[in-house]
């Protein structure tokens, strides 16, 4: 997963990556050559008592140091550029992909999770990339180069490497195998604790009202104790790991001098080489350690990569057909033909065998109980979901055969929860039709009964709107959302229970104004209040996912029992006669 994702996103940066590798190689070679020069100082300068030689070699070392430093800085430049750019590309890819998701896909991940994936998870990959593009490149070169240099300084002594490197590798491997699963479980336990605390904050009233404080405290204590135990275990393994690795390093040094000393005294190796060898073996083992430190980042980055790939690999549940059909004579007619909708795996379908037409120039209303499937029905029209069986036909063509963008262009939606975007009143109103004139905006506001309050807002059309529209009241939000749909001037209007926060008088005025404004359009209104629907040209009564009545108010009162019950429950028995 991680490799696939990383390789795919590094491909555009092949050149900088290649350059980076070359630079890091040069840097490493330089670093490796320094101890060699030091050996020369000892062998050719100190032992021979040649001060001039010491100085000359010193100047060489200085130049090499400067070059290595310069290489390193340039390498960091490219590493940062590539890792951050690849991360930015990933964010772009995720965002673009989610934009093509159907509502169901977005819900499946959850908004919060999608945000985490787009930022935190990408960040994890970036951190990993940054390290991988430096340390992970240096470490192998350093080890291999170190081994070559060590062989050069003393081939016989290098046999020691056959012992120390595997010991180091095996030890680190053993630690990793122990620690990584515990690390993962520690993260889960942290998440769990945070969840419990979050619930205690959001549910504080319920918890106190039902006297469940003790219960919550116990729940927390279990999570806390469990986290502490795991964290303690992990940290104790770490407490052992560092000294143990240092011991391996240090004992290697001791062994080098012990065996090397014999070779030197036998005369088979110059003493300067011994000092250099000492540095090399340290470098080799240190680079193994470095590689391991980065490897620690791998599981975390891999988990993130998996979560990112899950988004990128999701095929939107609803997508453009391969050969879209464009309706020849768009009129705004919406037809449901034998539509069934069920969530995968559920016991009962939400909608069962619905057949109904919503005609242009008429107002159709849908009324029914909570969970009767009203919103689901409306959501089938813009293809937020696809019917399990049967067909939704808009403008004479099955929605599944139409391209999405032109289909959506036909529809003005006002959802159940009015949602406004951060910006201004104006930017929200122009959301569906950026070229609308100010006069058109005011006209829409007037119809939506929003003109008065917008006019008194500081700045009028330029008044700021917070994300979600939280700085205006619920009723104002609904009216702005209605105005937004009106500005778009679509052929089909879908009002999904969007009059609920309006008082009855405003509701009535708004509906009266709507009739003129939407004269030629197809209007579908979902509502719970009888007063909202009773004047519709046609009322569709839904009960438990089935249509139990279609007709006008009077017609339904006469022969639709569920409708009568609704009317009585709201307006009293007198209204039902």
């Amino acid at each position: 997963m991680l490799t696939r994702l990383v390789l795919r996103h590094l491909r555009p940066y092949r050149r900088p990556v290649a350059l980076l590798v070359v630079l890091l190689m040069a840097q490493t070679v330089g670093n490796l050559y320094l101890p060699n020069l030091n050996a020369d100082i000892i062998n050719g300068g100190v032992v021979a008592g040649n001060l001039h030689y010491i100085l000359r070699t010193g100047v060489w070392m200085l130049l090499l140091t400067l070059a290595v430093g310069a290489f390193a800085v340039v390498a960091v430049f490219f590493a940062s550029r590539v890792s951050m750019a690849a991360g930015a590309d990933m964010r772009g890819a995720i965002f673009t992909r989610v934009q093509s998701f159907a509502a169901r896909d977005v819900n499946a991940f959850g908004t919060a999770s999608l945000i985490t994936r787009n930022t935190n998870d990408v960040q994890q990959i970036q951190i990993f990339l940054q390290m991988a593009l430096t340390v992970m490149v240096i470490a192998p070169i350093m080890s291999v180069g170190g081994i070559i240099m060590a062989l050069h300084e003393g081939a016989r002594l290098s046999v020691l490497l056959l012992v120390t490197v595997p010991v180091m590798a095996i030890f680190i491997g053993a630690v990793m195998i122990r620690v990584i699963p515990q690390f993962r479980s520690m993260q889960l336990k942290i998440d769990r604790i945070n969840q419990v605390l979050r619930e205690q904050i959001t549910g504080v009233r319920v918890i106190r009202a039902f006297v469940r404080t003790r219960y919550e405290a116990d729940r927390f204590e279990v999570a806390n104790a469990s986290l502490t135990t795991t964290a303690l275990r992990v940290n104790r393994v770490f407490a052992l790991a560092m000294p143990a690795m240092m011991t391996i390093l240090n004992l290697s040094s001791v062994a080098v001098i012990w065996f090397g000393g014999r070779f030197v005294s036998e005369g088979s190796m110059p003493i300067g080489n011994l000092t250099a060898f000492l540095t090399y073996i340290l470098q080799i083992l240190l680079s193994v350690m470095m590689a391991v430190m980065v490897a620690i980042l791998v599981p975390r980055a891999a988990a993130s990569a998996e979560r990112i790939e899950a988004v990128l690999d999701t095929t939107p549940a609803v997508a453009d057909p391969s050969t879209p059909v464009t309706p020849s004579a768009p009129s705004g007619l919406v037809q449901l033909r034998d539509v069934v909708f069920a969530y995968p795996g559920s016991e009962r379908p939400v909608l069962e065998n619905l057949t109904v037409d919503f005609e242009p120039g008429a107002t159709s209303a849908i009324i029914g109980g909570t969970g009767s499937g009203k919103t689901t029905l409306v959501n089938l029209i813009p293809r937020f979901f696809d019917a399990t069986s049967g067909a939704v036909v808009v403008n004479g063509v099955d929605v599944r055969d139409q391209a999405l963008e032109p289909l959506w262009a036909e529809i003005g939606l006002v959802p159940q929860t009015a949602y406004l975007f951060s910006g201004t009143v104006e930017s929200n109103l122009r959301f569906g039709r950026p070229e609308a004139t100010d006069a058109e905006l005011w006209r829409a506001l007037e119809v939506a009964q929003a003109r008065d309050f917008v006019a008194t807002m500081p700045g009028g059309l330029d008044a700021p709107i917070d994300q979600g529209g939280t700085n205006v009241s619920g009723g104002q939000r609904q009216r702005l959302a209605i105005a937004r749909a009106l500005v778009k001037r679509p052929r089909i209007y879908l009002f999904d229970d969007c009059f609920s926060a309006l008082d009855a008088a405003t509701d009535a005025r708004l509906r009266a104004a709507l009739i003129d404004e939407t004269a030629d359009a197809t209007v579908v209104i979902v509502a719970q209040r009888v007063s909202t629907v009773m004047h519709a040209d046609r009322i569709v009564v839904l009960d438990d996912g089935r249509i139990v009545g279609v007709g006008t108010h009077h017609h339904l009162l006469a022969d639709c029992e569920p409708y009568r019950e609704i009317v009585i429950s709201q307006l009293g028995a007198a209204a039902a006669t």
Partner: protein
Amino acid sequence: MTMGPMGAMRGALAPPRSSQDVRRTARRLVQLLRPDRWRLWGALALGVTSVAFMVSGPQILGNATNVLFDGLVAKRLPAGTTQRQAEQFLRAHGHQQLASMIAGMHLTPGVGVNIDQMGRVLGAAALVYLVGATFSYLQGYTMAGVTQRVMSQMRRDVETKLSRLPLRYFDSHPHGDVLSRVTNDIDNLTTTIQQGLSQLLTSALTVIGVLAMMLWISPLLAVVAVITIPLAFVVTVLIARRSQVQFAAQWNRTGTLNGLVEETHSGHELVQVFGRRDATVSEFTRQNRRLYESSFRAQFLSGIVQPSVQFISNLNYVVIAVVGGYRVASGLLSLGAVTAFIQYSRQFTMPITQIAGQMNMLQSGLASAERVFEFLDAPDERADRADSDARTGVDGTGGARVTFEHVTFRYEADEPLIDDVNLDVLPGQTIAIVGPTGAGKTTLVNLLVRFYEIDSGHLRLNGVDYRDLTRDEVRRCFAMVLQDTWVFAGSIRDNIAYARPEATDDEVIAAAIAAHVDNFVRTLPAGYETQLDEDASNLSSGQRQLLTIARAFLADQSVLILDEATSNVDTRTEVLIQEAMARLRQGRTSFVIAHRLSTIRHADTILVMDHGRIVEQGDHEALMARRGLYFDLYNSQFAGAET
């Protein structure tokens, strides 16, 4: 080996604070460690011992090199002479350099390397390293215990605090902020203490130990090394200051991008239907680009710390190699000393970069600690009376009598939310509360379950003053359905059985049927075992309300409170639920708040509230006859229907 980008990234979160605040917070953190002070002193002692052993290692190894070098040089000198003679001999033959070098050695001319002596020295070195490592492990082990105990305690303190804070605190502090303090800040603090404290200790001790060894071996070379330390520090600080700015920009822009993503995904369907996909993607691309620019700069700047320090370290190495070589050649220093020195100087830069990284981390950790302490310092809810022995005589089956006597409650000193309310509710009565938004309806029932303490007057439950009861005793008499429908991550069954986890499946299903939850639960793939996430996005708001009603039904207490419990439920279901409630209410006292007046027409008493006062009181007919506020409210409901 260093903390690298992660340490720096975390550090960048810390807002600038006055040093006085930092010191106070640091002092409190130290206070927190007080119970472990003996273990901490122990860890310090172990650390000092360990470092002392570890830093003497290279010196002993240097001695081994000296034995080797001495033997090597001695072997080339004629046997049977003394060291002094050999030196003079060399001078006589013009080897001035060699002669001065030998002057500084201890050797027996003609005799080769003393392998036994070298073995002994190396044995000592190995032993010193092993002992040092053992102490280091013991120190790490001890510190792990201390930090985990402290953090576990801190988490527990935070949790306990949550349950002791008055509700006012939650009203006046955004949930997101409180949450961030108890989760993100605690996490950050844990990481800081876990990684930072122990490492900082070791790093600091190592710097001191190495410095001491260097001074001991050669004060001249030590001076060279000592110059490089401040240099490394200054370079690190200079770069860090610049990268800090970029990190701040990076976090701001991440926030902006996050906001954009959240907003777009929240309004996903609208973005699609209103044809705004391309526009949003291009806005995202613009913000993403801005984020890339600052994150690149931040990464680059923080990334060059390591090469810079490495460069200084190499510089140091070169100078030591050259100056050391001169000194050895001049007999002022042994070769072993130079070898040891080189090892020391290599050991030196690592802890310095680490300290720089940990300082960053510590900064951010302190910022988090400050936020956590601020939370822990918020004033508690007034404590319950410890000697409470009054009993309400409420046993959960019968109704309870609730009495308000001149009850006044205010949030701000000058605007009462509840103003001189008097009310006597007999067991089994149903009280409906109506009134315009802001009239104080919710506040009134919140006082009932003692979410807030009244400012004056008396509230009595079966004649016993609330002040003589514990909060839990009061609340055990109530079952409440709140306006906000809280569900927790868990199954639907667990959510219904929240108030009575011991309830049987039959009882749960019975409550679910009464609250009309059963119907839709059966359309869900896993039925009652369906897992809800925290925001229960798989349920509609109406369904969530029904769920919380089922929860209250199952709780089955003497007093039932419904605060706009059915506002998102359709009227027909509402009627059915009311019938179920009517059965449930038999013999129980209930309070119902509703803005749909049809809901409460049959209540025994209807209270009409306005501006925190009860302005009208009576049954439906009586209130209609009065033609007052109730009459107006009731008629405005049907205004729409008659047009």
